[in-house]
């Protein structure tokens, strides 16, 4: 039977288009408008041209925050993706253990960002926190309020705790979709555990891994709430990521023009890196 083509179906996506228009396109347009002007409030604007962009691009503060962001995302991906795959591979595939593991894995994802920040802020404190107090008792000089390295370790461990579950659940979904016939064929061939992973499980997980890498990259690159609650961007500026710097500029200093310019540069960087990730991973997927 020949398929019927009907362009009226476009009306079905109209609500989504309107929603995206109001929630994304109009705010983005407004940010572009703000980025070329200066304002002191009262809805009065003064033309500034490309001054804010020049200021941002020549600001050491911006580049340092960008470097911190890139380093943070790199560390997060390097830790969460292998760890997520490892946990997913070792999770039970049948029996009562499956729902228990799935619920345990889903729990961190259900906790709001600011609550996660608060939990770790208290957890890491040397005076009352379990982690901080235990480390001090063991003779480890740990203080995330004072030491930049400790602050970074705390923020990274917190993110790994919060978001590795997402990678685990995605990988697990990919793993359980592999038919038993593949494993039986591998067993007949006498394939090693590594070969099964390399030639069966990893290729079958590729699509979900693409989603996991993209989601974790974009989310870690835009991270704000958790490090803001735990360290407030400190000590000094050591955990001031782009989003924290942006909020400081826009809300703290009320410099809306520079903040808008910074937002656009930030948006373009995320767009570029996400596109590169997506293209590289889908191209290699097409090759296999």
């Amino acid at each position, binding site marked *: 039977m020949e398929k019927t083509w009907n362009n009226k179906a476009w009306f079905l996506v109209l609500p989504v288009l309107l929603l995206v228009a109001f929630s994304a396109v*109009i705010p983005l*347009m*407004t940010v*572009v*408008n*703000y980025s*070329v*002007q200066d*304002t002191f409030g009262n*809805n009065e*604007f003064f*033309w500034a*041209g*490309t*001054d804010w*962009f*020049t200021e941002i*691009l*020549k600001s050491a503060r911006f580049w340092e925050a960008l470097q911190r962001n890139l380093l943070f995302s790199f560390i997060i991906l390097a830790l969460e993706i292998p760890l997520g795959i490892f946990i997913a591979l070792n999770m039970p595939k049948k029996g009562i253990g499956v729902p228990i593991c799935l619920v345990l894995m889903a729990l961190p994802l259900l906790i709001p960002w600011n609550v996660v920040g608060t939990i770790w802020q208290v957890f890491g404190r040397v005076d009352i926190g379990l982690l901080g107090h235990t480390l001090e008792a063991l003779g480890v000089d740990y203080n995330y309020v004072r030491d930049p390295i400790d602050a970074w370790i705390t923020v990274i461990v917190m993110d790994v705790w919060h978001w590795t579950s997402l990678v685990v659940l995605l990988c697990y979904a990919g793993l359980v979709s592999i038919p038993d016939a593949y494993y039986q064929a591998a067993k007949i061939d006498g394939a090693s555990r590594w070969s099964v992973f390399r030639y069966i499980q990893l290729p079958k997980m590729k699509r979900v891994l693409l989603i996991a890498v993209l989601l974790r990259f974009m989310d870690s690159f835009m991270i704000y709430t958790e490090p803001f609650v735990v360290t407030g961007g400190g000590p000094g500026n050591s955990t001031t990521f782009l989003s924290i710097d942006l909020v400081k500029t826009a809300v703290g200093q009320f410099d809306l023009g520079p903040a808008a310019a910074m937002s656009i*540069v930030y948006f*373009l960087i995320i*767009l*570029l890196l996400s*596109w590169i990730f997506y*293209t590289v991973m*889908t*191209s290699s997927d*097409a090759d296999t």
Partner: protein
Amino acid sequence: MSFSWMAWTLPTALFFLTILALLIGMSIWEYFAPGGSPRTGILRFETTRGDRLFISLLGAAFIHLAWLGLIGPNLWWALAIAVVYAIGVFRFV
């Protein structure tokens, strides 16, 4: 309904109208030549017409930013480079 809170200016309005015109133009092109004309160019992965527009616009944004950061606020040369770059993308990518 007032849109004064969006702080519109003539240059930014022209910028968005240009983007809109490009999208409308691409839609008309797609209507007359459907399928997006996918091909594999010098980047060695398949791109459609829409992908090539995306690469052109994203590249144009970075060309302008690089010009602003490295050379100066006069962006006409950056615009010229971006147009040449977009033609290159549509021709070879």
